[in-house]
């Protein structure tokens, strides 16, 4: 039965490649990227072996703990990372509980993240190659640690499923939980500054972690290498007990969930006509009202701009680290481009609901313009604030016109490019109602190429206004700043109009093709 489940997972994976070759390309690229990362870490492991056993042990315990913690928490944020084998689908089969659990658990290794984790954790033996006994122990414990990762991931997602049943909770939690992840980079960067001081308390942390499920397996080879065989045996037994306990807890909550499935709570709150009463009763106005409603209600949209309020914070970290505050002047243009970019996959986000636009035969220009207006309603004020505040607060008002020009050009031209991109290119995005951070498997390649090209074009269109700003910075002549404002504004508006026109024409011509594309992603 376990073998059957594993085979089923493999079959599902293979069939998904058949359905879309892009998916295969995505998986290959993802796999290569992961392998590259692992190759680097493996080289690190090889060099780590030069150190004292105590030092090796500390680093390994910390690293393995971090990986294990990641496996426990990240699936909660990106709800149900892998539901290819959804336990709920097996309710009607009479599969014995232990077999189902074993099958589901092991199937986690079939897939890029599981396989790479197994590879990485097992290659810990490289760090212990001077001591043959520790080497063998490291190999065994590495595999067990990988199993612990999968078990913890399963346990955390299953036991949280009760909580996460309500749509509202999913909507909010998915985004809120993502914020610390985005800020992780800057925080680590700041912490790294205090690396010297960290060396004093890191060993203590490692010591504690070595007794927890997170780091226990990583500590066993270290104990052997330092000669404390009894301690090693004790830790190993403890680790196996932890693993057993986690699997048991997961299995229990799994069966509770299967016997009493959670029915999603629905809201009974009445909704008025909302934004449809605010926008004019034209096709363009209706599209704008609908899009803006989605900006407010669909977490996928909120997720695409969750970076916006965090961007100034990240740049602020960057500027304090580099000691120069000039970086902050870039907030305006950067935010403008990011927000303009957020509507570049609008048709993909509509999914097959886009059929309503196809069937009603709404004009392409009305469709494009409506979406642009909805985005501009909040993007314009934010861009203005982000462009005006930094130079004023930093006392560099002489740069205000240029920054304003570049920012507005970035927003308008960017919206124009997005209006064209979403009429021409679709790619797999999270479906309506799914976790906003779930990446459909293998969406990577096509998405990356499209997004890169879209960003690239947006930057190219920005060159004239940027060039004038640079000239002002070099020459110090304020005239060029005002020129940047004028040129940026005029070019931005021209590009926006062109984008809506051309995008509209493309959309009208390609409506059935767009429809088929979103049907495939369904």
């Amino acid at each position, binding site marked *: 039965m376990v073998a059957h489940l594993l085979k089923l997972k493999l079959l599902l994976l293979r069939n998904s490649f058949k359905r879309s070759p892009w998916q295969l390309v995505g998986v290959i690229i993802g796999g290569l990227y992961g392998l590259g990362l692992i190759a680097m870490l493996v080289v690190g492991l090889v060099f780590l072996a030069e150190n004292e056993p105590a030092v090796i042990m500390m680093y390994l315990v910390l690293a393995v703990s971090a990986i294990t913690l990641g496996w426990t928490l990240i699936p909660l944020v990106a709800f149900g990372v892998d539901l290819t084998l959804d336990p709920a689908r097996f309710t009607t089969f009479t599969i014995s509980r232990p077999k189902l659990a074993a099958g589901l658990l092991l199937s986690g290794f079939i897939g890029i993240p599981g396989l790479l984790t197994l590879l990485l954790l097992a290659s810990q033996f490289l760090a212990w190659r001077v001591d043959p006994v520790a080497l063998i122990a490291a190999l065994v414990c590495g595999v067990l640690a990988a199993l612990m990762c999968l078990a913890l991931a399963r346990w955390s997602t299953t036991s949280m499923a009760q909580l996460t049943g309500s749509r509202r909770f999913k909507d909010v939690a998915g985004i809120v939980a993502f914020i610390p992840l985005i800020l992780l980079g800057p925080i680590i960067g700041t912490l790294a500054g205090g690396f010297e001081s960290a060396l004093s308390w890191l060993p203590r942390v490692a010591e504690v972690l070595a007794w927890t499920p997170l780091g226990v397996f990583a500590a066993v080879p270290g104990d052997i290498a330092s000669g404390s065989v009894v301690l090693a045996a004790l830790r190993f037994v403890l680790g196996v007990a932890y693993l057993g306990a986690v699997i048991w807890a997961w299995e229990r909550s799994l069966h509770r969930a299967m016997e009493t499935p959670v029915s999603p709570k629905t809201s009974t709150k009445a909704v008025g006509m909302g934004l449809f009463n605010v926008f004019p009763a034209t096709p363009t106005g209706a599209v704008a009202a609908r899009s803006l409603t989605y900006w407010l*209600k669909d977490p996928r949209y909120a997720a695409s701009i969750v970076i916006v309020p965090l961007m100034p914070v990240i740049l602020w970290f960057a500027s304090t680290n580099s000691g120069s505050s000039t970086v902050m002047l870039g907030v305006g243009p950067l935010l403008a481009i990011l927000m303009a970019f957020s509507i570049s996959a609008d048709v993909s986000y509509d999914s097959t609901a886009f059929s309503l636009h196809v069937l009603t035969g709404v004009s392409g220009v009305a469709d494009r313009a409506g979406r642009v207006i909805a985005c501009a309603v909040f993007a314009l004020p934010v861009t203005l604030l982000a462009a005006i505040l930094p130079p004023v607060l930093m006392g560099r008002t002489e740069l205000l016109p240029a920054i304003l020009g570049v920012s507005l050009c970035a927003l308008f031209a960017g919206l124009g490019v997005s209006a064209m991109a979403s009429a021409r290119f679709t790619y797999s995005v999270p479906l309506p109602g799914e976790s906003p951070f779930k990446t459909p498997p293998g969406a990577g390649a096509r998405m990356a190429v499209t997004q890169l090209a879209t960003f690239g074009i947006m930057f190219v269109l920005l060159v004239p206004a940027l060039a004038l700003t640079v000239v002002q910075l070099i020459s110090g002549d304020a005239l060029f700043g005002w020129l940047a404002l004028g040129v940026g504004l005029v070019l931005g508006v021209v590009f926006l109009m062109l984008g809506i026109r051309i995008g509209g024409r493309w959309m009208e011509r390609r*409506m059935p093709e767009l429809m088929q594309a979103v049907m495939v992603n369904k």
Partner: protein
Amino acid sequence: MSNSYLDPGTAALSIRSLGKRFGEKVAVNGISLDVPSGSFFGLVGPNGAGKTTALSMATGLMRPDAGQVWIHGVDVWAEPMKAKASLGVLADGVRLFDRLSGRQLVTYAGLLRGMDRATVDERTEDLLRVLDLADAGSKLVVDYSAGMTKKIALATALIHSPRVLVLDEPFEAVDPVSAANIRDILSDYVSHGGTVIVSSHVMDLVQRMCSHVAVIANGNLLAAGSVDEVRGGMSLEDKFVDLVGGRGSNEGLSWLHTS
């Protein structure tokens, strides 16, 4: 099945040699069909016969590989915008903008068609009332049951009072009372000059409700005409099984007998 086709200008929907293939599989194999104006037309066929594909191509959702389609003489693929103006469609297997309330969604469909707000509001309330959705109208569509979702989708197809209605599986998951209400609305619509095309695999329903019927299987048109012509004295269900074939013998599963 008669070989003399109507002039595309007089029929509500005319299809000529419509074809579509997906890779190796021929989904629709050169179908020609006329739906007379003012008829209640049933399209029946087994699962995977090509009903949805054919209807998608007839309504502008899917580009055909070959063939032509006219709605009241307007070529759907040459003048799509003009054809769509007189067409109301309930598509099968597509999502709705379900983060809108029912009322918002129907209003949205009306406004997208460029109707004025007062008319849209009036008709939206009428539609919600007759479809028994007046209370549910202010709830989000994502919280609707399958049957309610079907009904609200039907409302979006009716809002602009189209001349031709194309409904793909309109009664699926709809409760009997609502189904009867919908049938009344459709019959009334036909008696006042509208044309309805429904796909279904409930033969009994089609026989009672429709004036005309077409049978397709494996992408081919097997029979078309008035219901009485097609069924030729048999019940439509028997005739359908007769045409499509594939009935197994009754000796199949002796081990399933419990005693």
